[in-house]
């Protein structure tokens, strides 16, 4: 029996599950928007701007969820500042400590990028933002934001692994799984928003991107199950059945819809996106609650 079965669950439940989902979409949206921003063309601009808006709104909601989940929400700042000495509080080897700084930095880049997007879209009139967006600094902000986006997308899985809990601490594949799931759910969210804005060309590319992300997510999930060995028995329960349903309806079926667009006609791409979002949420729910329940 794994030594992880002698430990206690940390009571990370709904706020944390929703954060993992929303934070993943925020981070993935930024990464995808940055890719399109730096290497796309003019017809991608509406989706680029939407991606930055989703990133900012998502990370603000994430911060609120994480603070609400604390036993003492008014002490959320203890994550960043040593409360007794007033110095910065950072342990690079603690994913929660590093993650608090990562979320803060990502939030800053998401804010700057969203402001530049608002200026580009004509909502905000601020000449300095236009200068910033056009110059080297603007590009640097996007690149650094994407790096922090990748960090936020993946560190949540590593946070679970850097514990002593059954399943979470018995694999090295949670970080990469969450990262791929963040990109697939973000692509799905941007597909729906892109369709709403009539950015059909970009949506076509997003559909191809989501296909790749879903394949990578599926491979990461297989590697995770294999790496668990006998610990995978925690899924010999309703959780395992739900996970199987997630794989079928949230990964494989959307993959088929993205690959063969005639399956559901015009609804194929949006239906696939909705299923990916649902699957991404349920996957996090299974991973968090199946270990919490041990």
């Amino acid at each position: 029996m794994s030594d992880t079965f002698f430990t206690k669950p940390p009571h990370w439940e709904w706020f944390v599950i929703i954060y993992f989902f929303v934070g993943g979409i925020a981070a993935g949206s930024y990464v995808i928007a940055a890719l399109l921003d730096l290497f796309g063309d003019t017809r991608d601009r509406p989706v680029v701007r939407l991606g930055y808006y989703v990133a900012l709104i998502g990370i603000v909601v994430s911060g609120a969820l994480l603070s609400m989940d604390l036993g003492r929400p008014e002490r959320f700042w203890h994550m960043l500042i040593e409360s007794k000495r007033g110095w910065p509080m950072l342990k690079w080897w603690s994913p929660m400590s590093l993650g608090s700084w990562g979320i803060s930095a990502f939030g800053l880049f998401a804010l700057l990028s969203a402001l530049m997007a608002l200026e580009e879209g004509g909502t905000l009139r601020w000449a300095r933002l236009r200068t910033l967006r056009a110059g080297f600094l603007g590009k640097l902000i996007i690149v650094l934001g994407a790096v922090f986006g990748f960090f936020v997308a993946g560190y949540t899985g590593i946070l679970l692994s850097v514990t002593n809990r059954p399943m979470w601490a018995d694999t090295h594949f949670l970080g990469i799984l969450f990262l791929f799931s963040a990109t697939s759910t973000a692509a799905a969210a941007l597909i729906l928003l892109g369709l709403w804005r009539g950015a059909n060309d970009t949506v076509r590319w997003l559909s191809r991107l989501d296909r790749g992300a879903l394949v990578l997510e599926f491979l990461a999930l297989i590697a995770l199950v294999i790496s668990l060995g006998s610990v995978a028995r925690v899924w010999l329960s309703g959780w395992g059945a739900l996970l199987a349903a997630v794989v079928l309806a949230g990964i494989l079926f959307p993959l088929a819809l993205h690959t063969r667009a005639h399956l559901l006609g015009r609804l194929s791409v949006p239906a696939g996106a909705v299923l990916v979002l649902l699957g991404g949420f349920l996957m996090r729910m299974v991973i968090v609650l199946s270990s919490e329940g041990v």
Partner: protein
Amino acid sequence: MAEPMGFYTDTTVCIGCKACEVACKEWNQLPAANGGIRQLSGDSYDNTQRLDGIHWRHVKFIEQFSEDRAVGRWLMMSDVCKHCVQAGCLEVCPTGAIIRTEFDTVVIQSDVCNGCRDCIGACPFGVIDINPASNTAQKCTLCYDRLQSGLEPACSKACPTSSIQFGTIRELHQRAERRVQQLHDQGEKRAYLYGADDNILGGLNSFYLLVDQPEVYGLPRDPKLPSRNLFVSSIFSTLGAIVFGLFGLVSLRKRRMDEIAEGTRVQTPSQGSSDV
């Protein structure tokens, strides 16, 4: 720094009186569970059942009986925080609330803890939990306040059989080894020390004399630090980010190449097109 202090618990002389539980609750002013209404486990004399935010000491009652109950024994063990030399809780705590004291013990500062609960899942022994009175993570402090005043912890002071012994780690190790030898001489060859050497998390400042496998007492055989997973998990995630980034770049390039081939190429922003 003062000399490292800790507990040596000889489980062979524990009688399950729970004086340690009561003394701990009294000194540390810990609330009763369930509003003081007694909860029975239904299959044992164990009524508190676990260590958590309001139970910093817990006497385990392990019943080992044959099917017909003709042969059997009780194993009793007063469980507590192990005050690990390499402490998983202290390692992950993001606020700096968990500290190592001058006595080499591990203490959660309740006025710093914000209740993130990372330490609960990180503890290899399942010791820590939230105290609903403060909504912060709490556990045994090895009576840090008493130690600072030159007093011994409340639990060991109250223990009527000296099952729980307090002292310097060096002295406790000597005492415990003598006791193991005594038991071996008397024919109890199963006696051994758990956590006395540095093989388990660099050593446990609260270590045990046991007469059965660690798992029987609810103790992990080879507990590890949470950070053991950090490096490899981070490498995999970084590789994942690189693979996805490259995939995105390649698919954008492919779109451009396909459109050039079809003659439907759209201008890039740098080519002077206006906003869409």
